[in-house]
């Protein structure tokens, strides 16, 4: 077996093990919190006997290891369970909401990182210039505001005053029915609803890649190989490309983590724009102790981080031959 294959297999097994740990931790964690999904009904005045019957019906009266075994075996068969609060299968409940969040956050964060890398390269390469000192300030300034405030400002300015975009939602009410589930995402109506939430995500997170890239570029600019490229007479474009390649490694490292954080962190932006994502539903599910829903969503986010870290590890090798796993 070549060392590359072995590397992928070992890392793959590690990844599966880590995912199992996460799954178990989530299971135990949420059950350690006081109360379960019947607690709110108790507040509403349901009788103790009725609640006990309900708990028995959902298996919550059984010992933890029995519940855990059932959960794991069901999961292994692809059964995510049913939400006791909404009385619908978990998959049915989360699938479109998660997709809506993903379609907002993933492109916006990818764009944020590309733009941030560009800003960092330009400001960092002009060490000591006014551009380097001041160019980053607007980016940090905008990123310093809370997400909900940024979103409200965008709504007030571009939706209410200038009337360029709709104030909220993902699609206009009463739009034409489309046959496929993905049809609506290709319409102009979706596009026009997409602009402001997308901008809010970019503004909120742009400072992270910009700052890291700038620091990284300043460091690489001072290295001997950059000086050598300059003395050989390479045009500035070529030189910046080399610098950016070196400097992009730290930015690449935090990209998947940042993306996963944003997936969970856009709840405020989603709320202001009334975006039908998973964020708000997740908050409700945690408060309502909707175990199957919260376990699955948090698991997906964790899995996303772990798997993309694995992919970034492989990508490192493509960029930097020194950490490449040789065949």
């Amino acid at each position, binding site marked *: 077996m070549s060392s590359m294959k072995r590397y992928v297999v070992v890392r793959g097994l590690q990844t599966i093990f880590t995912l199992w740990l996460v799954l178990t931790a989530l299971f135990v964690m949420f059950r350690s919190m006081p109360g379960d999904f019947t607690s709110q009904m108790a507040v509403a005045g349901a009788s103790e006997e009725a609640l006990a019957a309900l708990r028995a019906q959902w298996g919550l009266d059984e010992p933890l290891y029995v519940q855990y075994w059932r959960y794991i075996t069901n999961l292994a068969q692809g059964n995510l369970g049913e939400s006791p609060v909404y009385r619908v299968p978990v998959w049915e409940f989360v699938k479109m909401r998660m997709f809506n969040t993903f379609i907002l956050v993933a492109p916006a964060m990818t764009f944020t990182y590309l733009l941030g890398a560009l800003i960092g390269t330009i400001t960092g390469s002009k060490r000591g210039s006014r551009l380097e000192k001041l160019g980053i300030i607007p980016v940090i300034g905008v990123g310093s505001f809370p997400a909900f405030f940024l979103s409200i400002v965008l709504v007030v300015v571009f939706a209410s005053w200038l009337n360029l975009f709709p104030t909220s939602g993902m699609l206009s009410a009463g739009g034409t029915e489309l046959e496929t589930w993905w049809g609506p995402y290709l319409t102009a109506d979706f596009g026009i609803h997409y602009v402001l939430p997308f901008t809010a995500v970019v503004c909120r997170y742009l400072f992270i890649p910009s700052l890291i890239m700038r620091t990284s570029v300043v460091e690489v600019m001072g290295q*001997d*190989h950059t000086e*050598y490229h300059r003395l050989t*007479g390479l045009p500035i474009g070529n030189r910046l490309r080399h610098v950016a*390649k070196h400097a992009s490694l730290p930015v690449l490292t935090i990209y998947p983590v940042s993306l996963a954080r944003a997936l969970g962190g856009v709840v405020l932006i989603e709320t202001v724009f009334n975006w039908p994502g998973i964020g708000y539903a997740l908050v409700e599910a945690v408060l309502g102790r909707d175990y199957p829903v919260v376990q699955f969503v948090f698991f997906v986010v964790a899995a996303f981080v772990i798997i993309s870290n694995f992919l970034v590890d492989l990508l490192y090798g493509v960029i930097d031959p*020194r950490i490449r796993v040789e065949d």
Partner: protein
Amino acid sequence: MSRPLLEIEDLTIRYETDGGDLTAVSNASFSVDEGEFFGLAGESGSGKSTTAKAIIGGLDDNGWIDGGTIRYRGEEIQDFTDKELNEKLRWKEVSWIPQSSMNSLDPLQRVSEQALEIGRVHTDLSNEAIREKLKEMFDVVGLQQSRIDDYPHQFSGGMQQRAIIALALFLEPSLVIADEPTTALDVIMQDQIFKYLDRMKDDAEISLLLITHDISVIFESCDSVAIMHASQIAERGSTTAVHDNPRHPYAFMFKEAFPDIREPSRDLEVIEGYPPELIGEVSSCSFTDRCPWAVEECHQSAPPLEPVGDDDATHAASCFRSDEAYELYERYGATDPSAEVEAEQGGN
């Protein structure tokens, strides 16, 4: 005699700094002949690297040539634009061996990729032709031709040094500038590097401008030498003339600061103090404050570089007391001579 390959005349270079305009090189003049090995010596910060960078238009962004001329094969090049430098000069005529060869190769690029990039900027050669040239040079410096596609980290330190020499030579320049090429290497590697440089001198009639703080390296391998102190050239001339008949106090004290294998028990000279930082016009000899023989005149104006001795036409020193300084040093050592002289006269 034919025209020198490189002529530098009254070159002044300044850097813009927060403390004012720093003079890094002031009125430096020297020339390098075809096939000659020329050593430029001095302490750190004396302006030797700055002088060399100016030749290939590689000054840092805050530095500029404030006066004087640089002529290459008779053509003035100090005002060349980046484009002209790339078309006419860099790498095809004048190439560079950097100070820290271990870190100067881009770790993310194969050596051949780096050569292709340099070749494309400076020539119209095909990729295949560039690779062939690099392979030939790998042969010359004793690396396997098949290794041109390696990444720098696959080479040992000495091999990286040789690869960077190959990169300096593959477009067949007439002048190679080597900025402390052996500083980071052990003596065995140093010796090998000079073997390669000597071979290219014999084979290709290449000229070398060697920048170093180690004057013994220059005495061993160079035909001519210029010794710089704090922006000024203290003394220059053929290596023999400067070695046997030094006329500038800095030159002979610098020389005596290095051990000599023939006189192992000799005390090494210590030059007190540090080179000054010169802001604005330089209107004195920059060695004045460290010189035991300085007189009033030395503070008031910078001594011009004037021919000394009759041993060699290029031998020149910039010292008002070049006629007597070495004699005083020989007789009394590096102490204030006037006091000694008076004491001696009193004794008589």
